[in-house]
């Protein structure tokens, strides 16, 4: 392997300041920034919808918005948060930024595809926002037939096309990650020296390329059925609505792992760093990531226990769902064991990461409640499910996303933020989150169905608690926006490795040069060698 020396040409941020230099960039780091800006915008659009939903639910009567508006609000909340925030969140921003840096490459394998993926994302977003402006969609993010094809009078097709397009953005990202991780590792960077974040990006890539095309074709079939009144889903045409559900969840369940696997990768980077300890059981962590990605494809039918699918299918999908929980449990235990005999400090990223572990544990355990057949019959489509998946996707994925942003912020921007504010924000998010979503577990067991804009009065206390928590959570999400932006101008300059972390990305200046490395590094030791590093640093 030749080690090509590249002259240092200043940081990637200084490679051009015009708008066009950003819109035409093929630098993975700049594309990551483009993605970060766009997903943040979508996060706040989805957040506004969530705010209105929680406000409406303060009282049992449907008094703030009409039923129609409410249905459009939760649909847009779901569509935007799932496809335009959560799925691209960690992979397309931090993954894009870090994959080449962490494996010691100059860029992703296909930089132009990478830029194309961002443009597809924007095009898909425009269609979806277009559907929103034109009057909204009221099918729920799940687009269940025959409601979405034959009965809804809203702009289903525009929204479906938006999601169809953004799917190809995911596919391109997935191809790029898989090829880059296989073919472009630095000398000495063997598979089992890869940081776990890279393993999680690899697993995410697999899910992107294998699940997304199925969704794309399914959405195409929905569109045709809606436009022409012929298709395979409507029973009035001899079709089967459960066929849609199988196809939809074949994508959408693995998509949940697209949200949580990167979060696990982030926790696996942060926890060893602030524990100054080697990660516990590196290999089983890597295998667990792969196992989750693969078994995660075999469990989709647990969304359909009461849908009318056969009880045998229910049994098969139930047992497989329990199996996929085993590697997740292993990961939680291993993170905990990583703390053992460490030297732990509690900087903001660590608080987010520990918060992630706790909330993910609750989310994962309640997921097992739902995988239990007899219990799911009662809990399905209630607020218990809402609480469960928000613990995974918001408590898990968003906490980890924030942790990752804080951890790599100095690397990305070259600036330090206020750690005191950041720790405060982490605690606000954690408290606000639990206050918002824990009451929903109780609501669900009491029997409150999801997607209700009015509800019986005995559910009010818990709903008020939840809405109160949501306002705390909103503050928690606005805080980082403020102090992180502040740091861009006033923050102290960050050195190349402010956290004394291992990993190749910390061996290059912050912010990194255009070509990532002055010369491609050679890897000689396993990842997370914190004990060895601290010993040699003294």
């Amino acid at each position, binding site marked *: 392997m030749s080690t090509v020396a590249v002259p240092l040409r200043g940081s990637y941020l200084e490679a051009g300041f015009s708008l066009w230099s950003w819109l035409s960039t093929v630098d993975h780091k700049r594309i990551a920034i483009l993605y970060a800006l766009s997903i943040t915008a979508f996060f706040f659009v989805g957040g506004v919808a969530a705010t209105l939903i929680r406000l409406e639910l303060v009282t049992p009567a449907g008094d703030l918005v009409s039923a129609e508006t409410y249905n459009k609000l939760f649909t847009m909340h779901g569509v935007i948060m799932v496809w335009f925030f959560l799925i691209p969140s960690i992979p397309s921003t931090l993954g894009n930024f870090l994959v080449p840096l962490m494996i010691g490459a100059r860029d992703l394998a296909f930089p132009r595809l990478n830029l194309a993926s961002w443009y597809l994302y924007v095009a898909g977003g425009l269609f979806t926002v277009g559907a929103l402006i034109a009057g909204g969609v009221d099918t729920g993010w799940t687009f269940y037939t025959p409601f979405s094809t034959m009965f809804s009078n809203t702009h289903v097709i525009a929204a479906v096309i938006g999601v169809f397009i953004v799917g190809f953005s995911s596919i391109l990202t997935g191809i790029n990650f898989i090829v880059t991780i296989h073919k472009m590792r630095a000398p000495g960077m063997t598979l089992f020296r890869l940081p776990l974040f890279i393993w999680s990006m690899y697993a995410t890539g697999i899910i992107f390329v294998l699940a997304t095309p199925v969704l794309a074709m399914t959405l195409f079939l929905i569109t045709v059925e809606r436009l022409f009144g012929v298709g395979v889903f409507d029973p009035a045409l001899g079709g089967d609505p459960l066929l849609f559900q*199988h196809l939809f969840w074949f994508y959408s369940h693995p998509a949940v792992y697209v949200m949580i696997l990167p979060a696990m990768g982030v926790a696996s980077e942060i926890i060893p760093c602030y524990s100054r300890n080697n990660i516990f059981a590196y290999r089983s962590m890597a295998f667990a990531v792969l196992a989750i990605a693969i078994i995660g494809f075999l469990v989709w*039918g647990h969304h359909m226990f009461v849908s009318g699918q056969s009880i045998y299918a229910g049994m098969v*999908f139930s047992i497989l769902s329990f199996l996929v929980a085993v590697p997740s449990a292993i990961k939680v235990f291993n993170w905990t064991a990583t703390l053992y005999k460490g030297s732990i400090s509690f900087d903001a990223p660590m608080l987010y990461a520990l918060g992630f572990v706790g909330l993910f544990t609750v989310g994962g355990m309640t997921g097992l409640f739902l995988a239990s057949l007899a219990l799911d019959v009662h809990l399905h489509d209630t607020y218990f499910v809402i609480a469960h998946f928000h613990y995974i996707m918001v408590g898990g994925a968003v906490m980890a996303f924030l942790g990752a942003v804080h951890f790599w912020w100095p690397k990305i921007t070259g600036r330090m933020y206020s750690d005191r504010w950041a720790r405060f924000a982490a605690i606000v998010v954690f408290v606000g989150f639990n206050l918002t979503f824990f009451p929903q577990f109780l609501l669900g067991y009491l029997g409150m169905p999801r997607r209700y804009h009015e509800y019986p009065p005995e559910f009010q206390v818990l709903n008020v608690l939840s809405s109160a928590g949501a306002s705390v959570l909103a503050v928690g999400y606005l805080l980082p926006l403020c102090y992180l932006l502040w740091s861009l101008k006033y923050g102290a300059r960050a050195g190349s490795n402010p956290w004394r972390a291992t990993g190749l990305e910390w061996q290059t200046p912050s912010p990194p040069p255009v070509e990532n490395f002055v010369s491609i590094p050679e890897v000689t030791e396993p990842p997370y060698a914190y004990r060895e590093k601290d010993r040699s640093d003294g």
Partner: protein
Amino acid sequence: MIAHPVPRVRTYVLVWVALICLLLLTLGSAYMNLGRLNAGINLAIAAAKAWLVAFFFMHLRSSHYMLRIAAATGFFWLAILIGLSLTDFAVRY
């Protein structure tokens, strides 16, 4: 520099002849009433044809093992999609 020896034209032509023969075979078998066996034969022949194309025309025979894994994965995941769905549809009624 050429990584692998280039297959001879004869190989390609023979594969093509085999493909056409299989086409005739599947067409012919379809005109024999074999009950459920017809579908099985048709699919088996289609799989054989796909294998010939992939191994010879697409050079999987001499490719890096990663490429073979990628190809196999696509088909395997399709089998998962259809196979696990059949736990529902095949026993629904």
